[in-house]
């Protein structure tokens, strides 16, 4: 009796737990009847099924990510770019998704990656590095997205976004970029130095000019001053000397004799003539 009771309880538990299933906010659910999909549009909550006849598969309803690290793509100018990108997708049509991928996320990711890579390849092949990196990044991403969307729909997948994370130049290309950057810096450095010597030269030249002008002006002014001094002096001399020209001539001459002759112990050869010597030979008064 007791054993029967326990048996009934266990059976009831198994039946109930097999006829109820919970669909989470984050999940899609598919109900099968002997392998055939009979219902796919479940709302979150508690739902029922017939045990052993129906079974249920659940898939994520959330936005999912596929990260693809370091894939090599060629640009228009045949440069190698390593591209990191990620794909944002979610399951849109659960039934279609189950049919095309068997409900395996890895399979879905594989299929998606193939189509997205094709899209990237063709978008990159149309563009140069600089266009991919900078000018048309948006367009590249949009192009990738639209190219892959059609294929994704066939998988029951909604492709939300394809985004390039990282675009890296391959070894030799990045080395040439580094070289260019070095040259650029070197150019910048020499430009700075040249600017330095430019401003230094200008400053020096201005200073030299200022000095020259200062000195020239000073020379001009000093000459003017000297000139006016000379003029005043000449005026004073002439006013005084004009009183007796003959006496001035005499007076100035003997002053000049005194100052110019005999100062360096000159040797004078004298013949004893002249008024100075007149009493040397003779004490008679001269008429």
């Amino acid at each position, binding site marked *: 009796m007791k054993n029967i009771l326990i048996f009934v309880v266990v059976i009831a538990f198994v039946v109930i737990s097999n006829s109820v299933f919970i669909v989470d906010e984050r999940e899609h659910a598919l109900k099968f009847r002997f392998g055939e999909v009979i219902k796919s549009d479940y709302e979150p909550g508690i739902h029922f099924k017939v045990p052993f006849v129906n079974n249920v598969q659940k898939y994520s309803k959330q936005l999912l990510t596929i990260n693809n690290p370091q894939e090599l793509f060629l640009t228009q100018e045949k440069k190698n770019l390593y591209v990191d990108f990620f794909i944002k997708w979610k399951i849109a049509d659960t039934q279609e998704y189950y049919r095309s991928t068997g409900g395996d996320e890895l399979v879905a990711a594989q299929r998606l990656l193939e189509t997205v890579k094709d899209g990237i390849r063709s978008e990159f092949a149309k563009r140069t590095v600089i266009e991919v*990196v900078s000018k048309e990044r948006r367009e590249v991403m949009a192009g990738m997205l639209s190219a892959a969307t059609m294929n994704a729909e066939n998988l029951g997948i909604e492709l939300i976004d394809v985004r*390039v994370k990282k675009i890296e130049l391959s070894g030799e290309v990045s080395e040439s970029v580094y070289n260019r950057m070095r040259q650029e810096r070197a150019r910048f450095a020499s430009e700075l130095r040249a600017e330095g010597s430019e401003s230094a030269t200008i400053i020096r030249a201005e200073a030299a000019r200022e000095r020259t002008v200062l000195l020239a002006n000073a020379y001009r002014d000093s000459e003017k001053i000297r000139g006016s001094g000379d003029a005043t002096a000449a005026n004073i001399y002439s006013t005084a000397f004009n009183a007796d020209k003959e006496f001035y001539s005499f007076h100035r001459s003997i002053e000049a004799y005194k100052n110019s002759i005999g100062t360096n112990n000159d040797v004078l050869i004298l013949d004893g003539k002249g008024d100075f010597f007149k009493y040397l030979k003779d004490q008679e008064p001269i008429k």
Partner: protein
Amino acid sequence: MAFNDQGNGKSPWDANNGQPPDLDQIVAEWQKRFNTLFGGKSSGSSNKRKGPPSYLLIIMGLFIWLLSGLYQIDDSERGVVLRFGEYSKTTMPGLSWRAPWPFESVEIVNVNVVNRFKQQTTMLTSDENIIVVDLVVQYRKSNPVDYLFNVRDAEATLSEVSESAIREVAGKSKLDFVLTEGRTEIALRTQELIQQTLDEYGTGISITKVNLQDANFPLQVEDAVQDAIKAREDKERLSFEAEAYANDIVPKARGEAAKMIQEAEAYKEKVIADSEGEADRFTKLLVEYQRAPEVTRERLYIEAIETVYLNSNKVLMDSEGNGSLMYLPIDKLLENTNKQNRSENNINKGQTIENNQPVNQNQDSRMRRVR
């Protein structure tokens, strides 16, 4: 040691006369109660009165089960309640109750704490340079429902999106812009782009701040960058040196100019004073001369010649009537006088210079000017 205080080396557990609690006894008692619960006619009918009745156990179990629905939400958190996996409500901080498992469950999300992560990324700029950027992103999970449900691993998504966004923004900017004045702008644009993308995905995450902590040249070009920095210093140094030079020569020239003016002024004053002096001397002498012209003239003449002859070496020749040729060793004479000069230099010069000074100087400076 405190355990052994009772002495005899006995542990306190042995206080009950060395007998452990009888586990078997307890188990047996519970078994009986369990049996009565299922209405079994167990052997324990004689023990029926012992222990609480079975319905009390059920109520107790039910009570504990209901109590397990209590949960506490911190001030910075929100609780998201799911009923059979379906979102039912968001609860605010405090003590709340939900229907216990398996009916409802709660997931707690901290919506106020600001998380941050740092990313160092190498990227290409629009002028095809490579730079290294340190990006710090601060965010919080502002919408707990979106955060929990919409995106699988929302935080990883945030990191991917920010990496993509900073590259997109930097890829549109020039190197110098990123490195210098563009920092704040780039951080802002990156923040906008991240937020916009996150909103498109419905991650429920709000970016509070994006900081461009550091933007630098890659290590590979470090030497050249250092040299450029040095060049900037060189540039400034050159300018400073030139300015120092200018500051040196211009004031000196100004001083020189002032000196020239002063010299000219001095010359002018001097020339005028000299002329006045000489003119006055002449005028005064003239007055005397006019009073007695002949005597004065004679006196002046003789005095002058006397001075001239006094200072010279003289050779007096009486050539009258003697037509014969005469040999004069002038060079010897000059030599002699030079020697004499040199030996008597000090005395002679001292005198002559003192005598001649005013006139000489006057002449000298005039000569120089004229030249």
